[in-house]
């Protein structure tokens, strides 16, 4: 389907997909960068955020409250998981951390399945965001444009927290050298707990705003987790700007390749990831040695 209107549509769609991927990946990369824990439960947290939003929506009928309430629930779940399980693994080998987060992911998925079954549930988009918007060069679902905007604002908010606040400074210092931060009398453990909570919230928040686009199932985090890892590897493990860049690149790869041959869009994603790993193993914006 090679044509200019379609090309412009796909580039735009790539941006929309990319914004969401960036948001989810930013949570993963912040947790890894600060805590050094590769969180394989991140996809499950994305999914769980969607369900938390769904429960709040069912109770209140308000989309805004669903987003707010779901996000708060995810911070609480994230903090609880960090306090009860993750903190015991900071000084354990990488493989232990990978296994425990993998296990947490399975438990979360099965808990949701136990509560909600395997059938899909969906949060409807708010009335004002229903329908289709004609942008002149393309027709695009209004809500997807809204999601792109929300994701961009959320990324900006995360950027401000990380780069313009004292907490962000400590987090970034923790990424560089957590031992030194500890020696300076800053309670690193408290920071780690907050970072895990914020990371879980970023995933959960993305899960909620995505729920009107893609209906929820307990397995919906699975594919996202894989794509998120690709994004983080392309952008640079542990780098927040890397997650944003990686997300946009991944979104564009998926969209533009599909225009030429849709069956190769996933293949191209992994081909580009492989290329990045060969030519720049630390990722496009990653720093050598940090990861």
């Amino acid at each position, binding site marked *: 389907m090679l044509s200019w209107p379609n090309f412009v549509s796909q580039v735009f*769609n790539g941006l929309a997909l990319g914004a969401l991927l960036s948001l989810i990946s930013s949570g993963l990369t912040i947790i890894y960068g600060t805590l050094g824990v590769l969180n394989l439960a991140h996809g499950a947290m994305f999914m769980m955020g969607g369900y938390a939003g769904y429960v709040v929506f069912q109770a209140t009928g308000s989309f805004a409250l669903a987003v707010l309430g779901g996000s708060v629930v995810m911070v609480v779940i994230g903090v609880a998981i960090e306090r009860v399980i993750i903190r015991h693994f900071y000084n354990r080998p990488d493989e232990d951390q990978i296994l425990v987060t993998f296990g947490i992911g399975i438990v979360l998925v099965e808990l949701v399945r136990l509560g909600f079954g395997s059938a899909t549930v969906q949060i409807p988009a708010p009335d004002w965001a229903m329908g289709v918007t004609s942008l002149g060069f393309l027709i695009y679902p209004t809500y997807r444009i809204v999601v792109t905007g929300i994701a961009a604002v959320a990324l900006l908010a995360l950027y401000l927290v990380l780069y313009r606040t004292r907490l962000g400074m400590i987090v970034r210092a923790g990424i560089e050298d957590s031992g030194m931060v500890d020696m300076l009398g800053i309670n690193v453990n408290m920071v780690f707990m907050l970072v895990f909570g914020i990371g879980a919230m970023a995933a959960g928040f993305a899960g909620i705003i995505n729920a009107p686009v893609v209906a929820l199932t307990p397995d919906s985090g699975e594919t996202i987790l894989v794509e998120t890892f690709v994004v983080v590897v392309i952008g640079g493990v542990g780098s927040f700007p890397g997650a944003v860049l990686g997300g946009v690149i991944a979104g564009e790869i998926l969209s533009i390749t599909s225009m030429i041959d849709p069956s190769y869009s*996933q293949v191209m994603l992994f081909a580009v990831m492989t290329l990045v790993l060969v030519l720049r193993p630390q990722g496009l914006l990653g720093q050598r040695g940090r990861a």
Partner: protein
Amino acid sequence: MSQKVRFGYHTSRRGALKMGAGLLGTAMVPLLPRGAHAAENYPAIGTYPAGTAGDTVFIGITVPRTGTYAVPGEDLLKGYQLAIDHLNSGDPLIRAISPLTTKGVLGKKVISGVADSAAKPNDAVQNGSRFISENKASVITGSVSSAEAVALNKLGDRERVIYLPGISGSNDTTGKDCARYSFRECFYGQTAAAAIAPVITKNLGKNKKVAYLTPDYTYGHTVHQSMEEYVKQAGWTTITNQVCPLGAPDYSSYLLNIANSGADVFVNINFGNDAVQSIKQAQQFGILAKQTLVVPYVTPFLARDVGPDLMAGVFAATDFWWTLQDRYPLAKQFVTAFQAKYGYRPEWGADTGYMQIAMWADAVERAKTFYPPEIIKAYEAGVTLQSTVGDVHFRPEDHQLVRPVIIMRGKKKAEMTSADDYYEVLEVVPGAGLMQKPDAFGCKLGSVT
């Protein structure tokens, strides 16, 4: 001489005893569980005779209970479980399909195990292998993805254990990947296309441009090929074929290509949750307002999950729809029994599950043994059976059931007479005229032993 006489004397006495015992034994045969004596007459093969040495016979059910095909998987499972209940209780419905059935199968109670395949062929084969080695399963059944069915076809042939596909729409399952030990009940890409093409071309007109959304595996490709072939006869041309991965969460890039393609008709071949998601998202992209949606292989619960607003006017092919109870007495019995047990009207997955177990019971009863080669012979005899969609029979050449395909159209909300009255049945197209020649897809059945 005396020895001879003595021998003769003893012989005649022994002979009398033997004859008496023989007669007694013959008279007692009907009292013994049928098949119990047959075990001695056939060599061991697969799980036979170990699997049926006791009072039970085991069915291994492997269905997706998680993942994109979980919903049709659960419906299929309920069909199996109802059939097993009916076999053990000797329900009149199952006895109508399997007339020799009394209770159980050859007098043995049917027991079963269930495992989740997540619609992954590897998991399905592992489940099947475990049922065979640990439970000595006499039958393995279940699939929602044809990739599972094809993999289990091979397992059945290799292990010499009967395998009954559940939902499997690929031409390959009884085509190039057919198996001697496998028997498929449901319709498939070629029959779906042959049945629905005349209806849609008659209703929508000639020379239309078609956009396809095709899942990237054996089912998707064969259904797409068959559809293309049949609508070509009415001058319909393919403008794009968007091949997407199984379980894709987001269809935006594929749907944009379809939205910008200028197609008149949108043929969505996706199944399970993929069908639900892609149709909902197609509506978000404004595709359903411009293009007529056709679903050549409708997934169970599609109308419930996308809602009647999106399904109104949509042409779809299926195996079974509950309003067929007005045409077929067995469909009525099935729908009533199913609804009483599970609280909702069955979709076509449940019907397939029920029929597969019932027809297997019939084949075993006619074979009078659990020895698989004899059961295969009974299947291959092509006996006409009553079913929930009228008379059906198996083709011996490719082990495909000759059965009708149901063509439906989605009702508008205002036309629905009950909450689940989603479709109007347009035609029940007899299967024989739809099917390709048995060898057209390269089916070569393997050896029995």
